[in-house]
């Protein structure tokens, strides 16, 4: 099993990373014992704020030799406990590795350290007339965290997810070896794609210390449409029809009036329209007004034909801010509306979204528990929240387990998967086992063993 960290180990860590970057015991803030939602708490024995790839390599050599567990943490905005050091040991914080190293305008790539925040990268790309398309709601997450969970976000309908934008990764293996996986190349058929295996591995295979990411030219025009429907059923049923129309919006999000009202109360800012029960929010982008307006018009007309009450045009910076800032705050707003909550981040085929949402409404009625949801209707990734409200502990645990069992079972029936973008971490691993079955899990365990036979890197996550 794992060894506890000794005073000598701490001295060695201080030599490697600098005394001011090594904290232990009570000097570590309790925040480092949990993430945003994972439902698991455990403090590390030592927190090391790392600054260089070589430092991380030396720390891993030490940890490997001494069999000390190591967990990597970025901003700590995860939702499934991936960055919680469940076995104690060393917690490596990468937020100080926050430099944007290179913008390569010939190859349309940007090279970043893992601690760069998504919002910093997005702003940097835009200042240089580029777009980094992955757009998860949590803008203060680090890029390292985004790569580790293969984060998706709102623009996935048109642009795909983080994995589609990772060209090359510099990583440190659990034994402390520095490797470069992938390359600054557009195509790659060179054996197993180890780079793609690391993307989404939630810090269990190796530690990402640098990433080369693909950019696209910044679309010059973007317009959103906020489309109100009389009820959630008609809103959700409209989505497959929009997709069939062959117009490709950048984003198709659904939201209920209740969720918008939570957001209003959380932000202290009125949403431009709350008269209707259900809404779909779409964005269109492109390089000319004529093209984007044509797409917007086609979808608006289609929505009106199939039962939308109207289609509101969100065309200026102010209007986009009013609508999208509310959308970006939904998770925190629902969290603020209840005493405790847990989340189901399932992904189902796009044409099954309406069936899954209706199922959650029925489940809420049957269990008497509040189950608000919102999410990416256009890519089938839903964020469904079970709210504790006034339930006592036993009632809460009962109802939570029942709801999760039912929802993941339903997702399986519909051809869906456990997580669309938040990952498995600690919180969802039992559901992953249940949904995937024995062989895929043992293959995952085998891969983990090849990278990390001592199981020192982020133990107790995903498939163990």
């Amino acid at each position, binding site marked *: 099993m794992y060894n506890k960290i000794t005073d000598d180990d701490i001295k060695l860590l201080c030599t490697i990373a600098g005394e001011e970057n090594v904290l232990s015991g009570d000097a570590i803030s309790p925040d480092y014992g949990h993430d945003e939602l994972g439902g698991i708490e455990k403090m590390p024995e030592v927190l090391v704020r790392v600054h260089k790839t070589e430092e991380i390599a030396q720390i891993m050599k030490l940890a490997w030799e001494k069999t000390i567990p190591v967990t990597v943490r970025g901003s700590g905005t995860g939702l499934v406990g991936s960055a919680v050091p469940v076995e104690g040991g060393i917690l490596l914080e990468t937020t100080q590795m926050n430099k944007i190293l290179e913008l390569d305008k010939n190859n349309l790539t940007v090279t970043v350290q893992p601690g760069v925040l998504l919002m910093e990268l997005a702003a940097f790309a835009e200042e240089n007339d580029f777009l980094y398309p992955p757009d998860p709601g949590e803008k203060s997450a680090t890029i390292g965290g985004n790569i580790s969970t293969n984060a998706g976000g709102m623009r996935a309908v048109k642009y795909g997810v983080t994995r589609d934008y990772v060209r090359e990764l510099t990583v440190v293996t659990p034994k402390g070896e520095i490797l470069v996986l992938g390359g600054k190349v557009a195509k790659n058929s060179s054996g197993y794609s180890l780079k793609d295996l690391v993307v989404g591995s939630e810090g269990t295979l190796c530690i990402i210390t640098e990433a080369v990411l693909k950019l696209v030219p910044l679309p010059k025009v973007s317009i959103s*449409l*906020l489309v109100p429907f009389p009820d959630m059923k008609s809103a959700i049923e409209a989505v497959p029809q929009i997709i069939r129309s062959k117009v490709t919006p950048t984003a198709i999000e659904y939201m209920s009036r209740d969720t918008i009202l939570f957001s209003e109360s959380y932000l202290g800012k009125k949403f431009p*329209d709350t008269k209707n029960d259900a809404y779909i929010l779409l964005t269109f982008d492109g390089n000319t007004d004529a093209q984007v307006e044509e797409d917007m018009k086609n979808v*608006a007309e289609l929505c009106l034909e199939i039962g939308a009450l109207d289609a*509101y045009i969100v*065309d200026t*910076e102010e*209007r986009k801010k009013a609508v999208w800032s509310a959308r970006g705050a939904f998770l925190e707003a629902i969290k603020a509306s209840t005493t405790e909550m847990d989340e189901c981040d399932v992904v189902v085929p796009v044409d099954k979204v309406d069936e899954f949402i209706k199922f959650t409404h029925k489940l809420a009625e049957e269990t008497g528990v509040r189950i608000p949801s919102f999410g990416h209707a256009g890519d089938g990734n839903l964020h469904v929240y079970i709210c504790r409200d006034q339930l006592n502990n036993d009632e809460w645990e009962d109802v939570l387990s029942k709801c999760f069992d039912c929802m993941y079972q339903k997702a399986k029936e519909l051809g869906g998967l456990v997580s669309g973008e938040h990952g498995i971490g600690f919180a969802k691993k039992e559901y992953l086992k249940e949904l995937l079955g024995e062989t895929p899990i043992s293959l995952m365990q085998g891969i983990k063993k090849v990278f990390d036979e001592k199981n020192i890197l982020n133990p107790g996550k995903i498939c163990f």
Partner: protein
Amino acid sequence: MDILVCIKQVPGSNNVEVDPVTGVLKRDGVKSKMNPYDLYGLELGLSLVERYGGTLKVITMGPPQAKDAVIEAICMGAKEGTVLTDRKFAGADVLATAYTISQGIKKMGNFDIIICGKQTTDGDTAQVGAEVSEFLSIPNVANVLSVEKIEDGKAVLVASLDEKVVTMSVKMPCLISADGDINSPRLPSFKVKQQVTEDMIKFVTFEDFEDKNPDNYGLSGSATQVERIFPPEKNTEKCVIDGTAEQQAEKLSAILRDRKIV
């Protein structure tokens, strides 16, 4: 209750360049939008119509394409709008603009309340509203936060006076300037946009005005002349402070003290 809202079309982006030679805003190729401050006024007016009934119209002054701002207002709930457009109106300063708008308002008829935005995002003078009220000889209240009620021919308003918030009763007709950020303006409706017809937008020119003295309009009616427009100096100097939180705080504090900011 008949309400008129004064609106203006402004550049769609806040980053419009100024021609360094002529000092004129480079509007070519830049998309336009309705002045964001006017949206608060429009929302205030539309909510009054919802509460007290009546109609809301809009007025704007500008080139013929300013009709797009009128269409946008109609999509938000205005019944119709007027575009004051004529080459004789070009080059107007705040005084000539206010006079032209007041003539346009007289042409449109009588209103109980005329609402302006606090200021525009291109001119930023915040003077046109008050001057229009002067030309119309009606009371004016600036920085209005809300309209509490309307009764007995008077509007009870809440307005911000720097460090004080005052509630006052104003005899109608009156002109009020809505403060910024006082509401969440509704979004324009695509459904209504499909139903907008030409007769909802009226174009009014110099020839339609009662006062046909050209010296009261445009450049010749302007009391002021702009000598030069220039963008504020931009400082692109950036300083990234490294180190632990404590070290960063110390360095930041030293910089702020050094520059006498604290």
